[in-house]
């Protein structure tokens, strides 16, 4: 009788396991992200633009800060948007006209994906060429 009960228990365990195999849900743990900061530096010419793409790993706020330009008294357009397919610049979503320095930034909510930042001398204030630095923070 004990053997019979043991066999029954084994068979029950086997059948239950095989039937439940399709209903097993794997545990998926979402990765935690803390955002990223990158530096976009280069040079910009009179009436020119400089653009670079960046990635957001999660939903949140992206911010571009115009930190430095090696010419004083020059206001440039700083903008966030989505990259053009051709790779030349951005489709602009949010833009401000600022001089380099603390607080000279543009921010907007973003979803996970690829976006871009663009600096443009829309009024032709730069004398020939100027070096710049923009810091980008993305979620």
């Amino acid at each position, binding site marked *: 009788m004990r053997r019979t009960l043991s066999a*029954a228990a084994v*068979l029950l365990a086997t059948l239950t396991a*095989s*039937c439940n195999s399709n209903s097993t849900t794997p545990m998926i743990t979402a990765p935690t992200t803390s955002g990223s900061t990158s530096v976009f530096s280069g040079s910009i010419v009179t009436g020119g633009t400089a653009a670079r793409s960046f990635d957001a790993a999660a939903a949140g706020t992206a911010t571009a800060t115009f930190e430095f330009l090696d010419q004083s008294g020059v206001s440039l357009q700083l903008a966030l948007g989505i990259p053009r397919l051709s790779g030349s610049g951005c489709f602009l979503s949010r833009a401000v006209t600022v001089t380099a320095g603390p607080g000279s930034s543009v921010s907007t909510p973003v979803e996970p994906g690829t976006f871009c930042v663009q600096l443009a001398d829309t009024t032709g204030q730069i004398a020939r060429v100027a070096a710049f630095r923009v810091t980008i923070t993305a979620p």
Partner: protein
Amino acid sequence: MSSGRLFLLAAWCAMSVVTSAACTGDRKASTTDTLTSPSLSPADPIVTETFTGTLRPNATVFYAFTVATYGTVNITLDEVTGVQVSEDVPFEFEIGPGVPRGTGCSPNSVLVVAPGEGPHSSGVFDAGIWCVRLRELGNMSGPARFRITIAHP
């Protein structure tokens, strides 16, 4: 073997068969359902749509239409009027059925036809959204009015 043990063995066998069938039976039925494709005869056209407009030299225009059920679609370029074409070039246009894609119509095939009695294009289409594209081949000197009829199920 005692009669009690014989009963137990028979019961477990029966249970195995029942549970095995329960585990796999629906899946087999589902697979069979999705793989079965009934053979249909194409339905005849019962709806006629007319597409009119202005066609410019070297330009394309398109028109989207919905086929309700698997069936025959006939497309006719009825007329192109109001334009002068020199006698040494053919009065012909490219016409093709296809699928709306991007900002236009991506034709599955194209024909070069002269406006007039048709159908110029006839085919069997699945139910869904389709389109016809008309292209001017560079023979016209100015814009012209056109009319296309599309007959479909």
